[in-house]
């Protein structure tokens, strides 16, 4: 802020005439080493943002008893902090999967995240029981069940029944397949799962290999 110039010993030519190159090299070397140490120190700070060992360990499979689930009903269990749905589809619901086929973005689930043993339009080990992660593939809200088909649903006359995401309106059919030109790009994710018996299901583990 003050404009008074101070007289530098040696004036303008100070820097070139009597520069001590040894000291300069030392300065440059210490600056480089200091910088490297600085960058090295930053590493653990950045790394501390990653999931901790505890967070990584918290992914145990969950066992579910599905004996009380009635046809046309759905239940939600928590797996890795996320909702996993189990829908017991009745005849009409399974029929509706054919009806929705032409309205879907990826009816064959070619791009979808699902274990290799999940195939076809039912996307299930047993057609009757549909298991999926109840998290929208758009930005991660949990869609709402809208099982009632047709105009009554408030969605449209041709609504075959399925799920509607409250956040940005993505629609999925009863196999979690996404409709065309929705914000969500992909079908709902199917977690690895397997049947321990007719009424016991384990989620997060499979025997047939994912």
């Amino acid at each position, binding site marked *: 802020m003050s404009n008074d110039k101070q007289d530098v010993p040696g004036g303008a030519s100070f820097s070139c005439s009597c520069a001590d190159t040894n000291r300069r090299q030392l300065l440059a070397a210490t600056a480089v080493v200091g910088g490297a140490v600085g960058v090295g120190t930053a590493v653990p700070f950045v790394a501390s*943002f*990653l*999931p*901790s060992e505890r*967070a990584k360990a918290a*992914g145990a499979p969950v066992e579910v008893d599905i004996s009380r689930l009635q046809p046309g009903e759905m239940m*939600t269990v*928590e797996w*890795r*902090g*996320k*909702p996993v749905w189990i829908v017991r589809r009745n005849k009409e619901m399974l029929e509706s999967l054919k009806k929705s086929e032409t309205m879907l973005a990826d009816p064959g689930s070619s791009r979808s995240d699902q274990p290799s043993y999940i195939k076809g339009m039912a996307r299930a080990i047993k057609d009757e029981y549909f298991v999926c992660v*109840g998290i929208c593939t*758009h*930005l*991660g*809200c*949990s*869609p*709402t069940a809208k099982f009632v088909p047709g105009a009554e649903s408030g969605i449209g006359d041709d609504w075959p029944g399925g799920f509607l*995401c*409250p*956040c*940005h*309106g993505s629609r999925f059919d009863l196999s979690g397949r996404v409709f065309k*030109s*929705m*914000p*969500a*790009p992909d079908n709902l994710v199917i977690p690895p799962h397997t049947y321990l018996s007719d009424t016991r299901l384990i989620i997060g583990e499979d025997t047939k290999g994912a």
Partner: protein
Amino acid sequence: MSQINALVDKGKEVLGWVDERFPLSSLYKEHLAEYYAPKNFNFWYFFGSLALLVLVNQIVTGIFLVMHYKPDASMNGAGIPVAFASVEYIMRDVPGGSFIRYLHSTGASAFFIVVYLHMFRGLLYGSYRKPRELVWLFGMGIFLCLMGEAFFGYLLPWGQMSGWGAQVIVNLFSAVPVIGPDLSVFIRGDFVVSDATLNRFFAFHVIAIPLVLLGLVSAHLIALHEVGSNNPDGVEIKKKKDARGIPIDGIPFHPYYTVKDIFGVSIFLIIFAAVVFFAPEGGGYFLEFNNFVPYDPMKTPPHIAPVWYFTPFYSMLRATTSDFLPALWALVVVVAGLSFVSCKNVWVRRLCALVAVGTYWGFFGLTVFGKTPALFDFDLLGVHFGKGLDAKFWGVAMMGGSVLLFAFLPWLDQSPVKSIRYKGGLYKTILSLFVVSFILLGILGTKAPGYAFFGVIPGEPVAAVCTLIYLCFFAFMPWYSRLDKTKPEPERVTWK
């Protein structure tokens, strides 16, 4: 009498002692008593000092909230998340607690109201233009920090809107090609929004961002005082100085504008207090009703929307679907084409061509406007070459980009005059359209998808049109600001 004189002398002595060690008097003179501001400031010039006031309010009330708040997502004995319960505790059991919390939550909305009006003043009077580019850019930095601060703070009460809002916004980052999914895990510190997320958001909200914000506000004011304030006429008062080198149209900030600002503060506080006491929830817009329910990661509430100050940008995110991309690409091509024609530089021209082709690939890949199957496709690190990038990514880019566009204003505006007072009908029309679109986008962003105005005018096409208008306001500014029929600026500020 002599006693008083002795006291005054003593005071001067103390001041002298301080001044030899710290530039107190010169700072006071430079920024208050001898900071010459244009004499024609009007209503729009209240909002800078009001923003400072609200900033102080947020910091002070925030400190007192932290004394009782607990950033902890684990369940207490009653099965309620500790963080949520601590906010309830502040509201019900801490003496004065609900008042302090309402000051803070209402203050957040007031901050955005004040800052939006403050920025709008910049649009009206061309305050972003030379030599105030850095004042404006520091302001942009402040605006981004404010958005971050509001977002991080919103997770802390750990209600349904907190959790699901954070879930959606953090997942936005997962749309970034290649690194996206890892990036969102990195931000959350977990695979889902969890305790780790809450703790780090707390750290950002209470210390990291406020420190940056204070630094930026200082830089904003230092830059402003270096170049001097603009004014409603948009003419530089420093061009006409008297013999002492003081601008003829300038008056000392203190006492003239301190008094004016105290008046503004009083009116503001009357309105602010009325809201805090009688409508602290702001009808569900300042504190959303769903946030009075603890976060349940198993169930999204049926209606989720961000707080009102994010909704214009959020609407643009929602509007960017694959159906919207052809229109967006048409806009890109027109702007790139215009730049191509009006700029002779070969590198700029190459860049324009590259942008047009690059966005085509990004939007549609190797298809005809996304309507046909791709010519061929291969997948490299999760990017489908034949399909281009997801509409989801473009939505995110749109949301970020629409905020950042403001930063380019100093260079987009080519009008010979600064102030709206001397601009022509063309600019005024476009600015009005811009403001109306911004407000409509804001309204739509608070509504569920599928909303229709008055039950008949569907919201989605309205949002798409408003998004295009918003973009056009910036994109075509270099051309329409030149075409606009302006009036001559006066020599000196006008003042009645």
